[in-house]
């Protein structure tokens, strides 16, 4: 009767195989370790895309399955990025500072080193003191823990407040958007302790690693692919069993679930927090590849784009989210990067840099109206052999 989880969910196996194959092929074609057909900057784009796919999986869990349209998951993504960015920036600055202070005649004291790091990092916001929140920045282990803990705690507190007061539907969406806006505005201040709108930069340099960016970009590609694979597996496992039944039930008929004796709020909170942690991990892998993080990344609009990706890819199916995120974000990079050829239309030449967002907006409306299942819905059209499933 009981078959293994993979056997009951062949799509997971297919996805993981394709992901492994993709990673392998890209590695072989890369500049860093292979034939050199794919530039390092494009490797980074692909690695970042994998991270975006991971947060899209998280978004699909919370929205596609549980029906909670969160417009705040990019806040958790950004916070994850900030947490790892703090260590990267601190450690790298420390190495540089120690190096330069050791050039002087007198070896530096601990206090002098910290003072110099502080001046380096916070000079742009007119300070040299480390704020409290940097207390653990010197420890990779602790900061890695914070990658999950800080966004997780924020999600837990916010979710607890929101869910216990029975805020649902569009109200919840607006509330999550407000939370995101509040966080972004907070980080924009110079005395937020995270360098205001300068954000954290130089994150692409791994402290103490001498390998070139060609190689480092591959490491991050592999790490991103692994995180996406693991996240996908976890998400698929979570939704496959009775937990999945309950959260889909919450989406379709919250009152029924409640009167069956399930504490709907606890389920929502658990899932909200879990997906926030997934988003944070995605962010922690994304920003070292992007090299810089600033509060603009957290602006509410980013989270709405995330919803757009998932909707275009197809809600309520994990691979749909992955397809949507990969498809739209790569297309967006292509159009806005200026690579797309301009479209001469007689009197007016359509420059895609200007018109891409118009196209995206309109196609998004069309998808919502005419193809609510998104790109993933195309898979439903493939005739399946009846009987093999049951």
């Amino acid at each position, binding site marked *: *009767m*009981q078959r293994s989880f993979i056997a009951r969910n062949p799509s997971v196996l297919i996805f993981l195989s394709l992901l492994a194959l993709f990673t392998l092929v890209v590695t072989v074609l890369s500049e860093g370790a292979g034939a050199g057909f794919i530039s390092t900057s494009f490797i980074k784009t692909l690695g970042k895309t994998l991270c975006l796919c991971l947060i899209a999986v998280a978004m699909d869990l919370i929205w596609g399955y549980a029906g909670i349209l969160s417009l705040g998951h990019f806040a958790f993504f950004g916070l994850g990025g900030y947490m790892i960015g703090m260590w990267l920036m601190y450690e790298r600055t420390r190495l540089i500072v120690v190096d330069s202070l050791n050039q002087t005649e007198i070896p530096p004291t601990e206090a002098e080193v910290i003072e110099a790091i502080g001046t380096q990092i916070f000079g742009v916001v007119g300070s040299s003191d480390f704020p409290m929140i940097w207390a653990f920045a010197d420890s990779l282990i602790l900061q890695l823990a914070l990658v999950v803990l800080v966004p997780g705690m924020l999600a837990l507190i916010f979710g607890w407040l929101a869910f216990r007061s029975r805020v649902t539907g569009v109200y919840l969406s607006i509330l999550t958007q407000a939370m995101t806006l509040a966080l972004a505005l907070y980080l924009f201040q110079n005395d937020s302790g995270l360098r205001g709108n300068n954000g954290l930069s130089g994150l692409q340099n791994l402290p103490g690693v001498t390998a070139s960016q060609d190689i480092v970009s591959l490491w991050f590609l592999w790490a991103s692919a692994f995180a996406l694979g693991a996240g996908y597996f976890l998400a698929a496992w*979570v939704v496959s*069993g*009775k*937990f999945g*039944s*309950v959260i*889909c*039930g919450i989406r*379709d*008929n919250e*009152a*029924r679930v*409640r*009167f*069956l*004796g*399930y*504490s*709907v709020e*606890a*389920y929502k909170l*658990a899932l909200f927090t879990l997906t926030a942690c997934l988003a944070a991990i995605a962010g922690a892998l994304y920003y070292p590849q992007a090299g810089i993080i600033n509060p603009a990344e957290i602006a509410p609009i980013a989270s709405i784009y995330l919803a757009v990706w998932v909707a275009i890819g197809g809600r309520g199916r994990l691979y749909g989210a992955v397809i949507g995120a990969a498809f739209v974000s790569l297309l967006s990079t292509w159009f806005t990067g200026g690579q797309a050829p301009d479209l001469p239309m007689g009197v007016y030449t359509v420059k895609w840099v200007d018109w891409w967002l118009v196209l995206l907006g309109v196609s998004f409306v069309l998808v919502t109206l005419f193809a609510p299942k998104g790109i993933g819905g195309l898979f439903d059209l493939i005739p399946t052999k009846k009987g093999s499933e*049951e």
Partner: protein
Amino acid sequence: MSMLLEVSGVSVSFDGFKAINNLSFNIGEAELRAIIGPNGAGKTTFMDIVTGKTRPDEGRVIWGEKSVSLLKMSEAQIAQAGVGRKFQKPTVFEDQTVQENLLVSLKNPRSWLSVLTYRPTAEDLGRVDALAEEIGLSDQLTRLAGELSHGQKQWLEIGMLLAQEPRLLLVDEPAAGMTVTERQHTTDILVEAAKTRAVVVVEHDMEFVRRLNCKVTVLHEGSVLAEGSLDHVTANKDVIDVYLGR
């Protein structure tokens, strides 16, 4: 006789309108009871209060032999304590199969952590089969609930409630929109269920109530107008006034 549920002196008002006015209602173990009353009599609000959806302005709702108050408990806690509720419109999880619908309703630990690691045991699957048998959906187990007919959905919902193993079952207009044979089947299920637990049926349809053959409580303007056998209450002058209009 010890009472399973004691509602006494309960009142609730919405913006000045008294939906429930000093209502008292008792039901014992293994009893079938029908509640009738015209529109706006407070039937649904009464259910809302018992299941924790609405908090009354005053009064007491006492539950079980330990006499705990239901007023301080959440909907989920009340449901776990043994109160099941069926809505007027069939509410089943339409995107899931009949089997999944029943499995999710089975009386098992409700916390999210235990649900996360839960995998159905052979015993649970056996219970599901038995329930499906009871509500007449044995051959529909793998179908999506959304594909069922209206009557089948109603039965599935009753089945889900039974899977919960409640001690009190509140059923809101179960026969609405059913064919005659479907009604008969519904009556059988409810009468059978009432042998081991308390069942309260809210119904408009006198014919259906007559077939249930049980004690009847008549609600009017938020309080109890009459109580007794159907023949007894239909002979009551107040009830006739209310139903026929003065």
